[in-house]
């Protein structure tokens, strides 16, 4: 099948009769089959997707098709899809099926997106390499010895390998942007509360965001437009009006761009530094103001992130207890052993580690030293970031310090793994939107991501500027 980079290209071909939804689904199914070894999908809805494709072809013919007609997407295994499996990559949700559509999923379906399957991810979205899944690891299509990033690793690899046009992932500390960077695609984390979390399996409630992974800014804009907005099922969702992102993607202003001095420090690869510098240089040459910002608080982002997210996670994951649904250990003999064995056998190592860490952080005597202090750091970060955006339109930094690493490379050293999220957790801590766009390759051809951040609810500008950035870096 021809490689499509956006729904616009598909629409053109549908209009000319060069393709149809049915042919698209067949093509993606064939690619999924060819790229099976990547382990990007945990379940394929082949029949269902084909039936839906035929329906939508009829709608297109009748002129009644929705905004997303022609778009074939995959859903990360943390999104509730009625009567479909939902496991968050975990054994503890063994055989679990969601009884409802999450708000975002419902809106995608209503807009005639075709859901082709459920995508592999790190268990409960905890991880940066997609090595922590009960369904096994996902491989990077560019180099099968390397990880696709995580936690939305399956979702990014699927878009990278043309197994679907777009994926819907979730981003709690970089889980959409980091794998997008590792796979050379686009990953958007919107403002916190921009998209309803109803129907998103919770990792850390005050951080979690649904976000699209795409091959074009137009598709990211379109998917955001469809999924965003008020929702009576999520009391934390924003009621800020959703603009028409797609119609306003032209960027013709002169921007004030800041980059963090700290993002060029030790531990950032030479290739990453070089490509980021290059991008900043392009902006300068195009007449934009580019300035260095000192951001010493960066050192505190990862610790604050891990304290707060594990605290919330330890509580959010308490419901998985073997009592109501999912996995219950067959060896349980009484209540205590049911809890211990079901959770002990059902959760993977990384999840257990984070639950224990979060439990410790919230326990009597430690709460103030860790949780309260991290909340203060979070507030400082927010204030400092707001100050930056009073002066600057965008912050431009690398998405990750390094490109995709080898499978198993960080197995013995969790801290080095956590450093992969060094530049992405900032946006989740303060709630601002951030995007990762491809920005060249390193010396061995692995993609480098460029992260652009802006102030809360600034997605319109962020998307337009990102499109502009991608265009000037192509020329």
């Amino acid at each position, binding site marked *: 099948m021809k490689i499509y980079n956006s729904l616009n290209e598909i629409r053109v071909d549908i209009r000319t009769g060069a393709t149809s939804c049915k042919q698209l689904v067949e093509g993606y199914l064939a690619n999924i089959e060819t790229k099976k070894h990547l382990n990007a999908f945990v379940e394929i809805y082949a029949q269902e997707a084909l039936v839906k494709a035929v329906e939508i072809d009829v709608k297109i013919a009748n002129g009644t098709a929705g905004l997303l007609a022609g778009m074939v997407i995959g859903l990360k295994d943390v*999104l*509730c899809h009625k009567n479909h499996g*939902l496991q*968050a990559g975990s054994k503890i*949700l063994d055989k*679990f099926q*969601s*009884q*409802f559509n*999450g708000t975002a999923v419902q809106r995608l379906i209503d807009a005639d997106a075709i859901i082709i399957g459920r995508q592999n991810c790190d268990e409960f979205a905890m991880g940066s390499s997609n090595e922590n899944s009960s369904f096994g690891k996902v491989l990077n299509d560019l180099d099968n010895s390397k990880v696709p990033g995580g936690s939305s690793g399956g979702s990014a690899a699927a878009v990278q390998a043309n197994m679907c046009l777009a994926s819907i992932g979730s981003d709690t500390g970089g889980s959409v942007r980091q794998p997008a960077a590792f796979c050379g695609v686009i990953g958007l984390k919107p403002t916190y509360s921009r998209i309803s*979390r*109803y*129907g*998103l*399996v*919770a990792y*850390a*409630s*005050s951080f979690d965001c649904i976000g699209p992974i795409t091959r074009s800014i137009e598709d990211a804009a379109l998917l955001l437009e469809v999924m965003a907005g008020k929702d*009576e*099922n*999520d*009391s*934390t969702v924003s009621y800020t009006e959703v603009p028409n992102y797609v119609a306003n993607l032209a960027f013709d202003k002169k921007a004030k761009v800041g980059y963090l001095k700290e993002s060029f420090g030790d531990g950032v690869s030479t290739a990453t530094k070089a490509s980021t510098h290059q991008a900043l240089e392009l902006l300068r040459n195009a007449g934009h103001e580019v300035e260095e910002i000192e951001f010493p608080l960066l050192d505190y982002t990862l610790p604050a992130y891990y304290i707060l997210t594990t*605290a*919330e996670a*330890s*509580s959010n*994951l*308490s*419901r*998985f*207890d073997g*009592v*109501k*649904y999912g996995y219950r250990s067959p060896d349980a003999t009484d*209540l205590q052993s049911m*809890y211990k064995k079901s959770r002990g056998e059902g959760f993977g190592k990384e999840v257990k580690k984070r639950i224990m860490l979060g*439990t410790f952080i*919230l*326990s*009597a005597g430690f*709460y103030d030293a860790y*949780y309260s202090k991290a909340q203060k750091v979070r507030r400082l970060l927010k204030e400092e970031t707001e100050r930056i955006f009073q002066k600057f339109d965008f912050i431009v930094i690398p998405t990750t310090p390094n490109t995709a690493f080898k499978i198993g490379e960080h197995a013995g050293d969790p801290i080095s793994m956590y450093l992969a999220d060094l530049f992405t957790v900032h946006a989740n801590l303060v709630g601002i939107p951030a995007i990762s766009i491809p920005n060249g390759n390193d010396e061995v051809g692995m993609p480098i991501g460029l992260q652009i951040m802006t102030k809360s609810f600034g997605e319109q500008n962020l998307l337009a500027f990102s499109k502009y950035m991608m265009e000037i870096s192509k020329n």
Partner: protein
Amino acid sequence: MHMDKLIIDKYQPVIGLEVHCQLATLSKIFTPDSTEFGQLPNTNVSVITLAHPGTLPLLNKKVVEYAVKMGLAVGSTISRNNFFDRKNYFYPDLPKGYQTTQDKAPICIGGAVKIKLKNGEVKNIRLNRIHMEDDAGKNLHLAEETDTLVDYNRAGVPLIEIVSEPDIRTSEEAYAFLGEIRKLVRYLEICDGNLEEGSMRCDANISVMLKGASEYGKKVEVKNMNSLRNVQRAIEHEIERQIELVEKGEAIFSETRQFDATTGDTHGMRAKEELNDYRYFPEPDLQPLRISDQWLADIKSTLPALPAELYEKFTNQYGLPEYDANVLTDTKEIALYFDELCTHTQNYKAASNWVMGAVKSHLNELTLHIHQFPIKPVALAQLIALIDSGKVSNTVATQNIFPEMLKGTGKLPLQIAESMNLIQESDTSSLQLWIDEALAANPAKVAEYKGGKTGILSMFMGDIMKKSKGKADPKVTTELLKKAIENLN
């Protein structure tokens, strides 16, 4: 266990109560699921109640309003900025693995409840707080099942927890406090206040110290008391148990003890269940809740008359004895019936007697609610007027007219009295006739009366009443009878 009063008197018990009230909202606190009691197990359960992955709580505004009503009724400060906290622990009846409650920012702060003791003393019991939270489901241990079953119908039913300061000193005060809380929630119609069915639950924190001591003793929490009486019993028992330990020089452990209604005893729960660190932290799935001036004013405007106000009115405006005012304000419905009755009669004491007597005993006998009572206040007022005018006696009113009115035919008391020929005879000529007959029939008794046995008069009265079929006006008849008997030779 009965201890020497002299020993008990050396100690000062200190008691605080925590009262959980299930709010009578139609839907649960964080889901639209029904709260209807007595449904088949696990029928009032949606994916939210069952804590399915991906679900989020939605706050029921009615719960907030009910909690605020209670706060206003006890004079609490209403917190304008509220947030919820998670209280984390594992138990099968707790679907989310945490209870959503208010730890740091309760909706109502402070306030007080006035209690009246048997000796007439009025005491102020201060409140620490009132907060909102969700109820748990129920574990069922059925005889024919080896496994424990869980019913989640109750999970997510809204609760308010009312926490008193440790101002309570005796079990009688605890009883009165709880009774007052129950009365209030029923007046406010926010909870049915049924301890037996568990829609209202009470835990007591109890400690003892030597009188005059400045430091409280170690407190023990007692749970599982399902009636007002049992709360009193459990507290009495626990006070004596603690005094006994102290007397023996043994230490009291801060622990949770279960009350056993059959033995009247309390026993400790296993130590393992005690070691709970609830790891409270702010609930990130709910927006902070702001109570605006307008909303607060709207809630205030829906507050009904409260028992203390009605008590004031009944004693001051109607001049009723405290006893009457207490009985009449015990339930809102009776109080309001009585208050309406008093708009139709000026004879408040008679009205009170009727309501406390004939009306209440009829309701009790048939276990009726006052809204099912067939006699409207205006009709009862007419009956009182009929007695006051001397047209019927109290006895005739109670025994003949009132029962007829209970049939609900809508006939007025005067119509009934006339149609049943019950209008009191105060016409002296017919009275004289019956008196003469009675005296003539019993010359011996007349002699006895004259010999000083004046009590014999009532025997004659009885005869005359019989002859008159109860219609003789007792007052007039007595006068005439005395005169007649003295005139006899």
